[in-house]
């Protein structure tokens, strides 16, 4: 009888040991990094009371039989907390993982030794119960090495590549044939405003933004200017172009001159109609305001990238009763233009107008390519939300930044 009891205790004890010992332990190189790091994974123990109180430590040794040294890692986490590495499978809720990049050699003083690439390390996971007992797992081995591709960025890579191809192909196609761009309401408003200046026999004022010639906004503004100059040449209306950057002024002079030539009225162009106002922000605004009050242009056109001076310009323009058309990709200034101008080209519309007017393949193709990109995003978002609402998160997971 005593023998029997003893046996039962023994069996129970081993069962207990098995229950507490970390199982399913695996160690392997941490993926998606430059090496020097090992990921250890093991099973989340079968649920019982106090399971959350188990603490784990990981020990590392250079030979299978030890000695093993302690490591420092932040708390063991469920794999589901790192879907970029472990995915979204059911099993990620039943596995724990920790990453180890160094161990402590218990010399005096203790030395921290980094995990080296290409060297085999032996790893044990030790479970510590609240009672103070510890249960080491079986020993497993792993080697850290450098990775050549970050798999968590796969979606980024694929999307980037596809979108790049779309843009490049669209630009290529734009050189071969005409691509359709919808009419841009702002340009019609522009024509109307120019027409009104002609009726009233008053000048048209075109004010550039503050950025230099290299920026997209200024290039777009110059393209719009060329259209404006074409019209004013045709209608025989006086055009004045205000600048604050000498390079932009030189380019604008060329553009206006060419437009007047094309319209067959080179005589009507005078160099002085494209002029420098001031270089400093507020001086520019103040001088232009003064000019507006004196000359009372019938139409004000403000194109390009504006800063805080937008308000000073547009306010004065509105107070002299001019028709105002603005276009800017400076989103902080847009509200001021919208409330003070008769028509405003908002953000990308300025680029679109520029592409529409210049017919330059690189601009048109790029615009078209971006349109395709936007359409794709639209479809993904609608479909993704629909699926997510039905409980299928796949699409959402594909389009997540890890």
């Amino acid at each position, binding site marked *: 009888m005593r023998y029997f009891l003893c046996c039962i205790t023994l069996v129970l004890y081993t069962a207990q040991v098995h229950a507490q010992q970390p199982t399913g332990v695996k160690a392997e190189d941490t993926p998606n990094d430059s090496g020097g790091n090992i990921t250890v994974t093991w099973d989340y123990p079968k649920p019982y009371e106090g399971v959350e109180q188990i603490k784990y430590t990981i020990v590392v040794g250079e030979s299978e039989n030890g000695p093993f040294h302690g490591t420092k890692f932040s708390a063991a986490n469920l794999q589901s907390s790192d879907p970029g590495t472990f995915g979204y499978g059911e099993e990620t809720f039943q596995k724990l993982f920790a990453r180890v990049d160094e161990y402590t050699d218990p010399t005096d003083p203790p030395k921290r030794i980094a995990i080296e690439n290409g060297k085999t390390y032996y790893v044990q996971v030790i479970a510590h119960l609240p009672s103070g007992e510890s249960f080491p797992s079986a020993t497993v081995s792993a080697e850290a090495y450098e990775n050549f591709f970050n798999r968590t960025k796969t979606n980024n890579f694929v999307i980037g590549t596809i*979108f790049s191809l779309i843009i490049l192909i669209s630009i290529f196609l734009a050189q071969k044939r005409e691509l359709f761009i919808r009419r841009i309401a702002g340009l019609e408003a522009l024509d109307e405003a120019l027409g009104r200046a002609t009726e009233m026999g008053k000048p048209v004022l075109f004010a550039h933004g503050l950025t230099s010639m290299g920026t997209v906004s200024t290039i777009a503004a110059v393209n719009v200017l060329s259209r404006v100059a074409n019209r004013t040449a045709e209608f025989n209306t006086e055009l004045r172009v205000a600048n604050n950057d000498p390079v932009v002024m030189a380019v604008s002079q060329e553009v206006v001159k060419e437009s007047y030539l094309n319209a067959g009225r080179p005589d009507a162009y005078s160099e002085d109609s494209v002029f420098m106002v*001031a270089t400093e922000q507020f001086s520019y605004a103040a001088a232009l305001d003064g000019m507006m009050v004196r000359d009372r242009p019938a139409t004000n056109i403000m194109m390009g990238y504006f800063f805080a001076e937008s308000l000073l310009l547009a306010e004065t323009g509105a107070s002299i009763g001019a028709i105002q058309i603005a276009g800017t990709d400076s989103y902080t200034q847009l509200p001021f233009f919208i409330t003070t101008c008769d028509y405003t080209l908002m*953000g990308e519309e300025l680029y679109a107008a520029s592409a529409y007017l210049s017919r330059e393949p690189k601009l048109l193709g790029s615009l078209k390519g971006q349109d395709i990109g936007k359409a794709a995003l639209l479809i993904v978002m609608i479909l993704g939300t629909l699926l997510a609402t039905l409980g299928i998160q796949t699409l959402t997971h594909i389009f997540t930044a890890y």
Partner: protein
Amino acid sequence: MLFLRRTLPLIIAFAVGLIGILVFYIPHSGAQSLEYELTKWDRIVAAFALALGIYSLMRLHWGRVRRQQAGWAYSFLVFVGFTVMFIFAIYNDGHGPFNPQVADSGPFVWMFNNVQVPADATMFSILAFFIASAAYRTFRARTPEAAILLVSAIIVMIGRVPIGGLISDSIPELSQWLMAVPNLAAKRGILLGVSLGIVATSLRIIFGIERSYLGGGEE
């Protein structure tokens, strides 16, 4: 010569651009060191670029002084400000230009605190007045769209300051909702569009389709 002037820059832009993209996906330490080294170079070149900006500003004003254009005296003032500050910068509160900067005392800091700070801080505050005047004279609900804009602006303006909460608890809540739902949606839409635009422009630069940054036209 044409190779050096035109082709070489395009090759360089293509090469570093492609490296810049690829190292993002390659965790190998070789690629990462390359990224570190290139960004280190870029930081130093960027310092020269900033200096170039200052140089060209000074050159512009110098041209006005030399040609005695209208208002050249103001351009001269730019030089006065620059020279005084520059001398203090070299003086470095007695330590000279080859020791670390003294950032908490000396004439340079005095100039910053008493000339640059009040001037810069005042400049944009002037707009407060013009906004009030524009509010009265020109911020008009010319279209239904502009009306929505103004209403949303008014709600946000009351809701974001303590007085909104005094009038009614629901005003700050409504203003917070406007910011965190419809405003967020529109800003995200804009952001997505702009991001695609940034990617497209960057690609055009890397593939040599966009060359305006090189200046001097197409040659």
